[in-house]
């Protein structure tokens, strides 16, 4: 069932939250030893919350937006007093003293927090293989990666363990796993969802967003988690949204831009074909498809891996063995404490990125790398502004390929980075982007199409996605 269907069933009295939660727990019990999506499951807390919500419902108390619906949370969103490890040994025992704003909002909406999902360490990765804690497998083919960094959050929805989950997206970490796992995932406009309580990777790029099986469910979750938050100084005053209002209506006079640079080769042929079919489907529904260029697309990965790593080198400086997190026993001086704690606590990819960022910010290199990347960032954002003068949204593949095999790219960091080529641009420009299923390749691996819209057009994007899902059934297919 989708979250929307669960709400309707609870409303109609044909099920209860407790029943639904038990169902999730059973599926997790049955499937997760093979999939590895969850780091921890809050069985008692979830059942207790479900029972309370059921009681409130039968007492006739007002029902809020997500009442009784189970949701899984990526492990870098702080839940008070519960281990928030960010997939890292550095924070393996860290218990935040506060809830993230999105958690407060989910609790106020009576969502039932089921558990914490696996991720690439500190959100750095595109396959979830960089988790220091466990391996997550793609439910469609367990020899394949689920994508990353929100691999656990994607896998648990794809495997029907929970109807919805939260992930985060800095360079594609919601959209790419959604694509690999055959589900829907949204990266909202930058500033729409509060980052208070989100463990920071790259502060000008990070956004929290939902995974679900339908655009309708994404809309449901977005409307709950979005909103201005004074505790996040990058939170937009116009952050609040009621995307649900737009979803029931069909878009009129839709102009969709097919990104030319995605047709330049380097895309798996089944993926190109699926995107072309999707364009034809949109055309059948009355949309006008035009070719549009993002001239600086090829510079996106480079720009991203400078900006993100520079910001990360600053954000991860707080892990020092003193304030929280892992502390080395081998240090006799303060400098040693920092060096040994950090070296023991961080995995290789995290170290690599911190070093890249430190280098790019260091004296003599700052202009050539960091400042240069920020200038290219403006060019990329301008590309989008130009494109959106001609079209309402852009269409293209989320990723050049379907899910790659576990272990296939782990020894080649650059190959791993290049899988983000189509997703990083939206984070650099701060615009909303969504990935929805649009087909399968010859190995029955899911293919995702990405829609990108102007800043604050999250509702319109969801509406366009819902239009496609109304006339296709890719999003309904489930792994065996």
């Amino acid at each position, binding site marked *: 069932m989708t979250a929307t269907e669960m709400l309707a069933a609870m409303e109609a009295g044909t099920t209860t939250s407790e029943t639904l939660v038990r169902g999730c727990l059973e599926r997790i019990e049955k499937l997760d030893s093979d999939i590895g999506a969850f780091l921890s499951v809050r069985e008692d807390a979830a059942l207790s919350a479900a029972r309370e919500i059921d009681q409130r419902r039968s007492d006739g108390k007002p029902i809020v937006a997500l009442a009784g619906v189970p949701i899984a949370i990526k492990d870098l969103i702080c839940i008070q007093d519960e281990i928030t490890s960010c997939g890292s040994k550095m924070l393996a025992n*860290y218990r935040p*003293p506060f809830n993230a704003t999105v958690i407060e909002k989910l609790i106020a909406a009576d969502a039932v927090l089921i558990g914490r999902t696996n991720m690439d360490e500190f959100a750095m990765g595109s396959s979830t293989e960089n988790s220091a804690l466990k391996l997550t497998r793609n439910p469609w083919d367990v020899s394949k990666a689920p994508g990353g960094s929100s691999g656990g959050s994607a896998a648990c929805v794809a495997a029907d363990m929970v109807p919805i989950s939260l992930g985060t997206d800095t360079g594609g970490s919601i959209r790419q796993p959604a694509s690999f796992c055959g589900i829907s995932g949204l990266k909202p406009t*930058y*500033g729409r969802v509060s980052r208070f309580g989100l463990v920071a990777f790259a502060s*000008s790029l990070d956004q929290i967003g939902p995974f679900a099986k339908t655009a309708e469910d994404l809309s449901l979750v977005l409307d709950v988690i979005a909103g201005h938050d004074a505790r996040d*100084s*990058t*939170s*937009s*005053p*116009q952050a609040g949204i009621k995307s649900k209002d737009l979803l029931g209506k069909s878009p009129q006079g839709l102009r969709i831009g097919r990104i030319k640079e995605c047709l330049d080769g380097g895309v798996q042929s089944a993926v190109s074909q699926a995107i072309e079919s999707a364009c034809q489907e949109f055309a059948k529904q009355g949309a006008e498809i035009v070719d549009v260029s993002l001239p*600086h697309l*090829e*510079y996106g*990965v*480079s*720009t991203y*891996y*400078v900006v993100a790593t520079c910001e990360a*080198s600053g954000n991860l*400086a707080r892990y*020092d063995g*003193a*304030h*929280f*997190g*892992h502390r080395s026993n081998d*240090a*006799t*001086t*303060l400098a040693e*404490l*920092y*060096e*040994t704690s*950090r*070296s023991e606590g961080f995995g290789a990819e995290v*170290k*690599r990125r*911190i*070093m*890249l960022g*430190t*280098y790019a910010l*260091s004296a003599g290199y700052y202009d050539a790398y960091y*400042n*240069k990347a*920020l*200038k*290219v*960032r*403006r*060019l990329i*954002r301008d590309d989008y502004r130009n494109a959106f003068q001609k079209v309402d949204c852009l269409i293209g593949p989320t990723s050049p390929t379907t899910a790659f095999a576990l272990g296939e790219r782990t020894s080649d*960091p*650059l190959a791993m*980075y290049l899988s983000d080529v189509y997703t990083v641009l939206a984070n*650099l*420009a*701060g615009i909303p982007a969504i990935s929805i299923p649009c087909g399968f390749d010859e190995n029955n691996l899911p293919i995702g199409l990405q829609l990108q819209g102007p800043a604050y057009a999250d509702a319109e994007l969801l509406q366009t996605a819902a239009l496609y899902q109304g006339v296709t059934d890719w999003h309904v297919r489930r792994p065996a």
Partner: protein
Amino acid sequence: MDLDIETVKKVAQLAKLKISDTEAEQFRVQLTAVLDHINHLERLDTESVEPLANVGDLTNALRSDSVTPSLAREAALQNAPKQDGDHLLVPPVFASEQK
């Protein structure tokens, strides 16, 4: 443009990371490959382009200078590996002299 091993070690020191010689060489190879790719940004003429650091629509999101409740000290210290109720405890900055 190959990074040299000294630069890798210097960067590790700046980042407060302790790496072995083997790790340093591995990072040297990997970071060189990534930087080689990144260097194509040089091709772009950005002479008259202003850097863009913040894609949000806000500048100077300020709040009024008034005292509001914040995290209690106990809560703030609760994850500190070594603390005495008031302070975080750390080893001395300078190595001890022989006793």
